[in-house]
């Protein structure tokens, strides 16, 4: 990493956890449909007022990760075919909250 500020882009699946992540309030998870990972889709993080905070495209394993702050959050998943799911989760510093989100399988 150089002095150039990093942009705000979100890599698919979210930014990897490193040894510097120990104080972060991490919310992560995977999205599946009918037991298979959802590889095309988006996870959005909403705050406790329902306001949008962040979004990442799902990784090839259906995964996502956010670096939040202590509090209650909602993860909203969007997938092709209008599939969507909302999950509420609480986060705290130094803790990783992991979700397994399932959405309706395409065509079901």
């Amino acid at each position, binding site marked *: 990493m150089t002095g*150039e500020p990093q942009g705000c882009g979100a890599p698919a699946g979210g930014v990897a956890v490193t040894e510097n992540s120990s104080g972060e309030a991490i919310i992560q998870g995977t999205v599946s449909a009918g037991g298979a990972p959802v590889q095309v889709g988006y996870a959005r993080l909403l705050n406790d007022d329902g306001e949008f905070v962040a979004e990442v495209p799902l990784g090839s394993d259906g995964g996502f990760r956010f670096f939040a702050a202590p509090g209650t959050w909602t993860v909203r998943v969007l997938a092709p075919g209008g599939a969507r799911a909302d999950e509420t989760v609480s986060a705290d510093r130094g803790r990783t909250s992991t979700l397994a989100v399932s959405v309706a399988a395409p065509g079901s």
Partner: protein
Amino acid sequence: MSRSDVLVDADWVEAHLGDPGVVLVEVDEDTTAYDKGHIANAVKIDWKKDLQDPVRRDFVDKHGFEELLSARGISNDDLVILYGGNNNWFAAYAYWYFRLYGHANVKLLDGGRKKWELDSRDLVTDVVQRPRTSYHAADPDTSIRAFRDEVIAAIGQRNLVDVRSPDEFSGKLLAPAHLPQEQAQRAGHIPTAKNVPWSKAANDDGTFKSDDDLRKLYGDEAGLDFGRDTIAYCRIGERSAHTWFVLHELLDQPKVKNYDGSWTEYGSLVGVPIELGAGR
């Protein structure tokens, strides 16, 4: 200007992606999405490698922009359709950048990559090689770009629109929540700025809300004085390029600037005022 002068939808792109004189460009910070699959015939622009000076924190200069567009095979009279991930933030940034260097005929694909993917439209991995052109850029139009001194002078004088999330605005978070929160700058916002998160201008699928909804959002709800000049900022200028697009291109506000130094610059300045909390 009407919406159709600055936006196209996915059906239009499917019908015209092979037309001569139309160039599709995918823009992102992380271009691995393009490499895995992109809209047929689209070329790519890397926000960092192609649009940022490798040494100073600034844009590539006019000559650099001419070289980039010539190498991508883009001519001065081509219609350039920009799209990308992250709800078109980087595409909106590129749109603003193309305008800054005087490219007349440029539009955004409404909804960008996300809407295209959620619609399950085709993506390809073949990379098109367009023949080189000889692109001529105009001098940068600084009437749409704000610098820090002007931003400090605008406190309490002009509309300042902070388009980050409420949690970044209040100082609870220092960056979007998909990024680690260890950051060098102080937390908070520029005094007198109104917080209108960029996301309020977009639907869940990334498309822009209607002009009526947008006018209500910035006018009635946020209390923006449309008679005054406006400066939009975020953390590094891409999300605020999205809002610049809404105010300047969709709502036809004549004097709107994007402050691309944004919070990573302002929050690192010595001695400037910072406000914490939800704003007034």
